[in-house]
């Protein structure tokens, strides 16, 4: 009866509203996504809303790397795509520091594993590595498109993963997920470390190989040989990569996709080695994790000179149909100037690594620190990153419509 009365009430309201000349709203307010990839599909929410997580425990992986095992207060599982990263926010000396770390476990678990290399000279990683169970961490995310999508037309997936050092983290997530969820997937891992003691996840990788015979192979490349670990010897470069790939039958399969993650120099050499083997560039995905504190060295000295040349730079920032006008001091980024002027600009890592602050350059010139995560297509379309982009003179930028924050 109540339901019928409520329905009648709604019907009457519709008729009255229509007679007064008003239509029903044409669009449906979208709810948080139901899709399994929801993690990748709520950009504005994830970019702007930090979540607080509890450190469940800290696992010492190697002398220089730890894994923070995090859980949510409500105990719910984490939803991300294997290969994605999170931005950790750390309050330090009056400023909020942001760093990106890839998840190293499989999604949909009740824990999130962030594996962190302790950089002795770093501002953030020593603090994170010193954390203890029960402490809390704030983070944004997940972000990133370094993800292993499904194979074409339902064929079993064949993945060759090439990792250097702590670059193993997203690849570990990809390998664990593919092996656990897809009975026909085959994965080979080429993994470069300084020494046997520096191999992150060594025991887990061995266990995976035992659990999935014939489907998972690991070829270690060690700078210092160790009797305990059979390996190719040397730095992970073009030569050792080619030797290691020879040991992986998957390399020769036409459907194989390649995922490369590691320090810049190593990555470039691996890419060159893959090209030398005739691997189609479209079959290769790579992850950059160059970002530490903001790079102080831009690609050209003239760029630096231009961006710190004296004189204020008037900037117009278009967001959500409004124009915010402000002036950037020499050397200040578009993001710094915009936020100081109260423009609701989205951002996340603030160091050129996630693309959350992407803006379109409508007018003027902006020097952007390299390397950063913009794709060639985005560059060609005129996008720049506000967080590492410094105006060289008067300019106008526009925040893409879907990205505008509140």
């Amino acid at each position, binding site marked *: 009866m109540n339901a019928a009365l409520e329905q009648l009430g709604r019907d009457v309201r519709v008729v009255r509203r229509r*007679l007064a000349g008003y239509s029903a709203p044409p669009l449906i307010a979208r709810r948080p996504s*139901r*899709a399994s*990839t929801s993690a990748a599909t709520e950009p504005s929410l994830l970019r702007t809303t930090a979540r607080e997580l509890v450190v469940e425990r800290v696992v010492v992986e190697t002398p220089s790397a730890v894994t923070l095992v995090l859980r949510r207060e409500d105990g719910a599982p984490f939803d991300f*795509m294997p290969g994605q990263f999170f931005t950790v926010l750390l309050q330090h000396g009056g400023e909020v520091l942001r760093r990106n770390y890839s998840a190293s476990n499989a999604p949909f678990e009740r824990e999130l594993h962030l594996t962190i290399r302790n950089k002795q000279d770093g501002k953030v990683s020593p603090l994170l590595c010193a954390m203890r169970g029960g402490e809390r961490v704030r983070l944004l995310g997940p972000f990133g*498109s370094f993800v292993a999508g*499904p194979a074409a037309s339902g064929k079993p997936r064949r993945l060759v993963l090439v990792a250097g050092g702590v670059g193993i983290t997203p690849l570990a997530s990809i390998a664990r997920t593919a092996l656990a969820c897809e009975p026909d997937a085959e994965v080979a891992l080429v993994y470069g470390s300084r020494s046997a003691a520096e191999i992150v996840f060594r025991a887990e990788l061995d266990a995976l190989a035992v659990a999935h015979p014939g489907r998972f192979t690991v070829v270690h490349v060690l700078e210092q040989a160790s009797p305990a670990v059979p390996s190719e010897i040397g730095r992970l470069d073009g030569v050792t990569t080619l030797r290691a790939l020879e040991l992986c039958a998957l390399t020769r399969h036409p459907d194989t996709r390649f995922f490369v993650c590691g320090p810049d120099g190593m990555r470039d050499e691996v890419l060159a080695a893959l090209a030398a083997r005739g691997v189609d560039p479209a079959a290769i995905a790579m992850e950059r994790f160059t970002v530490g504190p903001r790079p102080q060295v831009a690609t050209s000295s003239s760029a630096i000179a231009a961006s710190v040349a004296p004189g204020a730079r008037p900037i117009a920032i278009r967001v959500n149909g409004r124009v915010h006008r402000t002036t950037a001091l020499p050397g200040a980024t578009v993001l710094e100037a915009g936020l100081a002027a109260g423009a609701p600009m989205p951002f996340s890592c603030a160091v050129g690594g996630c693309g959350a602050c992407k803006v379109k350059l409508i007018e003027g010139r902006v020097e952007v620190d390299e390397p950063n995560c913009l794709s060639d297509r985005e560059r060609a379309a005129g996008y720049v990153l506000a967080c590492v982009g410094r105006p060289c003179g008067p300019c106008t930028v526009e925040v893409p419509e879907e990205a505008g924050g509140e």
Partner: protein
Amino acid sequence: MFGDRTQKKLTSMLPLRVRNQMDGLYEALQVLMEVRDPRVLASLAPSGVRGLVLQRGKQGVPTQTRAHHSAHFDWSYPADNPEMRALYTRAKTGQWNSDVALAWGTSVDPYDPATPLLPDGFLDFDALARLGIRLDAKERQRLVHSVASWMLSQFLHGEQGALFAAAQVTEAVQFFDGKLYGATQVMDEGRHVEVFHRYLDTKLEKLYQVNDNLFVIIDALMADARWDMKFLGMQIMVEGLALGAFGTLYKQTKEPLLKNLLKYVIQDEARHVHYGVLALRDHMKQLTDSEKREREDWAFEVALLMRNRFLAYEVYEEWFEGVLPRDKWREFVTNTPGMHQFRQTMFSRLVPNLREIGLITPRLLPRYEKVGLLKYMAGLSADRLDGDGLIAELDHAA
């Protein structure tokens, strides 16, 4: 009732917003006035009021509809329809997993000129300019994004209807082989809801309300107690038109994920329509003349509703309400090249199926002719087409 001119004269004194609402209500009245058979009126009118007047689909809360059919059990499990059994076998092997089959990692930029959702010229911007609305390049892109999102939203809502209708039909149908087949269709429809919603939610990031005309059809099907009316409505009318619409979009879009998604969906849909033709062809011959006449009229009315469903009023309300009269928008959408093409393909798929099951009789020909649907009579019906054949035909035409 009033003629068009009288209606215009009476409403011209009202403010534009009120006039637009009157136009909508008047249009609803016209649809119901077209109904000649009182039995059809009795079955469609309550749904018409719920959808066109009360806009139950747009009230912002889940909609409850009451079903009146009975579930048909057969404890002897007869092998009663070899063609349906063959279709069931085909459907089992044709299942696909949307997580694996489609590359959801594809980054979709609705504004990228290299991969447009809809082709250049889909909307006639010059015609819009003649109505006093001049859009710059960016606004044009946004309008095309809206129209594509709107279309896919209506496909999604139609698929939700199809999901529940397929479940009802599976309960109600008299053929046991048909029940087994029906179970695969329920799965198909669930998957279609999943992929269209996922595409809209994660790629286009926009979802429109259900169109009032589409709501009327779904509501009428859900409420009708007769299994063959559910079949006729869902398998022939909604699915048949969907097949045409998906085919047009498949041919026209350059966005690779959407194209691939449609390719998979089309192959399922071809089975669905085929099933409807198989079930109804013989059944229609067993009906009395009076029962058959009712179904002929009902199909005609639903075809009209389906035609009106594609007028994109929700896009109008988002963009132009208050600046452009509703009837001018109707005229624009009706004549804009892309939508014109859509109607062509949709009805060229639907009309041959209606002919095949015997629902277009000499009595109805003048009415089909009057609304411009007669020219589609010559095409192939679904029982002579399969999914691969359809895709090949579309690829050839593209």
